[in-house]
């Protein structure tokens, strides 16, 4: 008979054996991996989709051609439109016609480059653009018409009152003024944009939109 001294518990740590060696650590690793994957997908979704929305959202159609504060994209409505233009048009100008039928210029800034604000007064002044018919329409930051007591949202070539030299001046602001007036709705902090539509533009306007003389947008005051 051999005598074996029992040492456990005397001067050392007692180690518990794992009934299923390795299983606990694998479960922990799997959980950690799953959490990492979820975090990657969430971050990628936020960054990817968020950057896409930031890129295509804006105050207007944006574009590649600028005339003063007015901008347009030559590819609006066209099958040659790049994916970003398509997405931008879908958000800010769904069902827009191609430029041979209509050219859409959008301005979200005045001539000085400052954002258009509902509490300020602007003069939109110019002469008839080269098209069969044109209109200037005011939209809120949400791309819809802005509520006002006059229910007036635009002026067109057939409705605008003209100066003696056939030019026109449209006042855009919160307070009623004599002559042509498009109300901004009056909330001082709201931004807005103007869209100038040229229906059946003249051929030279279609071929060279950058060469069209468009109305100036000049800030007069910001009373509120």
């Amino acid at each position, binding site marked *: 008979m051999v005598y074996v001294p029992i040492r456990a518990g005397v001067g050392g740590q007692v180690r518990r054996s794992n009934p299923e060696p390795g299983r606990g650590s694998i479960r922990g690793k799997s959980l950690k991996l799953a959490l990492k994957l979820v975090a990657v997908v969430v971050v990628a979704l936020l960054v990817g989709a968020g950057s*896409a929305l930031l890129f295509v959202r804006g105050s207007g159609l944006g574009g590649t051609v600028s005339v003063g504060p007015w901008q347009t994209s030559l590819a609006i409505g066209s099958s040659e439109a790049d994916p970003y233009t398509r997405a931008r048009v879908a958000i800010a100008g769904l069902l827009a016609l191609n430029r041979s039928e209509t050219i859409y210029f959008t301005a979200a800034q005045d001539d000085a480059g400052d954002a258009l604000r509902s509490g300020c007064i602007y003069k939109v002044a110019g002469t008839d653009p080269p098209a069969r*018919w044109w209109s200037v329409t005011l939209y809120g930051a949400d791309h819809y018409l802005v509520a006002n007591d006059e229910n007036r949202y635009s002026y067109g070539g057939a409705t605008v009152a003209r100066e003696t030299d056939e030019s026109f001046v449209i006042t855009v602001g919160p307070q009623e003024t004599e002559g042509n007036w498009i109300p901004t709705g009056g909330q001082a902090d709201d931004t807005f944009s103007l869209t100038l539509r040229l229906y059946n533009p003249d051929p030279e306007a279609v071929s060279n939109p950058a060469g069209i003389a468009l109305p100036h947008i000049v800030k007069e005051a910001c009373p509120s």
Partner: protein
Amino acid sequence: MKTWPMWVAGTIALAAAFHILTVFGLPYGIMDRAMAGIVAEAGGVNKPVYPASATAASRGIVRPSPDLLYTACAYDVSERPVKLTSPVPDTYWSLSTFASNTDNFFVVNDRQVKTDRIEIILAASESTATEEGIPVIVAPSSKGIVLFRSLVPSEDLRAEIDAKRRQSNCKPL
């Protein structure tokens, strides 16, 4: 071995994929929503709606023109072609068609029609059997939107132009 560079690269690659998917998918999603709105109002596809002039309360389509009267149909040519008919008023007027990705694949205006009435067939392919003598427009997508625009140059003419645009129609053959 350090694995964090792999995780960062994977996140960037996946973010790029989501970015591209969002940019490509947005037009389709927004058109789907617009078509669903027209279908709900018209009571089905290939049927027209005649909304009142756009006001601040209008929320169907972004940046509507308050100077135009619109007639809209959500078309579906997957089973049968659709016949588009309309009187052509004595004002700016146009008939335009938009694919499911927002492309404006066809437009004709009052000056180009040269008669006081238009008939056009929208079909999935040129070989589709249609009515003889009526021009066929091939739609690049089986679903999309047809939009008639009529300019109201002055309030005196509104009733007359409104009565004519209410005769604009989309109907399956």
